[in-house]
């Protein structure tokens, strides 16, 4: 049985349709990704799963319950890390964890050691008694993530969890998420970092304009929507446009980005040799394997890092 099941899930703000009849299922213990450009409807979907945004249409069950009519019960099993930190600015860091645990109805004798453990995980032990307003952006993010774990959730909703984290903090989080996954926790996450999606997601959907445009495992999506290899060449902003015509002749699909041109081809090295043989002289060039970023570009026509 799925832990999350959405059928025709729709959210309208006035006349504007933010989420347009999407359907998906998430299996227990799976880690499921929502990818999509800014404004695609990812956060709105996350909020509907937590029952904090009312859907306009469709059905949704989380652990077999409708989050709209059973919000408190559903959220008892949910850990929510929203895109924008919703920390309690009037409380200190440690109190944020304890008070948040109290909202779940958790007892103090559980929360005190738990808060210390989570502070350590967030590397905020020294800041335990600091006011939230005195924390840096990344520290607030870490505290928000730690807070989402206080009720030992079965499903963790992570909306761009690592935005604003330094590389070390990001790897600590990934490590923790892997361990939670081993314990059977279901992960639902959005991210704009494709390496993160490839690392963490068993399966993902790409959303654009509130609709699901592709679904599958990261590797399967890459095979389906991109070539095995990609050649990236730069000619400098002046020459990129004039090169487009020549390059388009050389392979099936190219993408012209503001700073570089991508050529999709299963045999990248051979293609690059050909480019050099013709004396096109790119300023820089490289051959790499296709990634989710290429899938994203193909499906949404937009580069992920806006």
């Amino acid at each position: 049985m799925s832990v999350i099941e959405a059928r025709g899930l729709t959210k309208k703000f006035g006349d504007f349709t933010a989420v347009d009849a999407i359907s998906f299922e998430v299996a227990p213990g799976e880690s499921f990704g929502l990818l999509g450009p800014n404004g695609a409807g990812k956060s709105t979907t996350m909020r509907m799963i937590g029952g904090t945004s009312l859907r306009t249409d469709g059905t949704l069950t989380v652990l077999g319950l409708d989050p709209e009519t059973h919000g408190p019960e559903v959220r008892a099993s949910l850990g929510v890390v929203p895109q924008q930190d919703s920390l309690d600015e009037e409380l200190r860091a440690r109190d944020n964890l304890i008070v948040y645990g109290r909202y779940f109805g958790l007892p103090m004798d559980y929360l005190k050691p738990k808060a210390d453990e989570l502070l350590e995980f967030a590397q905020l032990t020294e800041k335990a008694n600091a006011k939230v307003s005195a924390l840096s952006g990344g520290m607030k993010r870490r505290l928000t993530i730690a807070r989402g774990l206080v009720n030992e959730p079965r499903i963790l909703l992570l909306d761009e969890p690592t935005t604003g984290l330094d590389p070390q903090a990001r790897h600590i989080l990934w490590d923790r998420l892997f361990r939670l996954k081993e314990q059977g926790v279901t992960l639902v996450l959005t991210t704009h970092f494709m390496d993160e999606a490839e690392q963490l997601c068993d399966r993902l959907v790409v959303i654009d304009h509130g609709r699901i445009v592709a679904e599958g495992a990261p590797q399967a999506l890459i095979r389906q929507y991109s070539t095995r290899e990609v050649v990236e060449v730069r000619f400098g902003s002046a020459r990129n446009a004039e090169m487009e015509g020549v390059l388009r002749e050389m392979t099936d699909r190219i993408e012209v980005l503001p700073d570089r041109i991508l050529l999709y081809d299963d045999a990248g090295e051979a293609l690059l040799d050909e480019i050099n043989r013709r004396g096109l002289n790119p300023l820089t060039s490289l051959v790499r394997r296709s990634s989710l970023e290429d899938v994203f570009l193909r499906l949404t026509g937009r580069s992920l890092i806006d």
Partner: protein
Amino acid sequence: MSDTGVMAPIRERLGRRPAQFGGLYAGNARAVIERGFRVIRTQNWGVIATGFFEPVFYLLAMGMGMGALVGAVPGPDGQPISYAMYIAPALLATSAMNGAIYDSVNNVFFKLRYSKLYEGMLQTSLGPLDVALGEIFMALFRGLLYAIGFLAVITAMGLVTSWWALAMIPVALLIALGFASLGMAVTSFMKSFQQLDLVPVVLLPMFLLSATLFPITVYPEPLQWGIMALPLWHGVELMRQLSVGYFDGETLGHVAYFVVMSVIGITAASLRLRQLFLR
């Protein structure tokens, strides 16, 4: 899959809750109140003190200053009383109103839109009703502190003459409850900070007209009826009667007005909870 772990008993309790609450109430407003007291403990007391000093300053300026010009005025029972005695109970009623409106409109709107406090609360097992009840309780608690402080000041100044004045404290809470619950319902319709500016546009004339600083008999009769329909006038009259321990047939009417207003306010706020918290 058997349910284990620290949340198991909580999930079990929430699962047994009657369905009519429709996911709005988890029976844990206590946690919101606990948070309120934790904030008060860490807050600097200056913030809290301002709410106390406002009516005191009014009393000093108007009661002492204007009072020197006005002299004695007829009290609720027709006996002459000093002008300060006349306005002190009215200022208590007004401060109960202002505090309640500030907490249920400005504060709630800010916490919804800007500080994201309620967003954080509602990511947990709390329901909107838990949040609303907890916040109204905290507003009433602050109102209680102000009322006690103000009553102590006016008692020390000799402006109350009856033990009935002690009842001004629960009455201040009743006034606050009426305004806070209705205020929360009104907030659910607010979309922008500009709309909040409309609140003083309503409250200030009500304060000036509601027999706070002079009797409403100065107005033509139709306007008097209009003022008597407003809540603050009932609060002011009730407080004034309590301050001297004089009651008449209207006393219960004033109390009933606020009881009805609170029932309507709580009902309206409950019906608007989804629109208020779950946008």
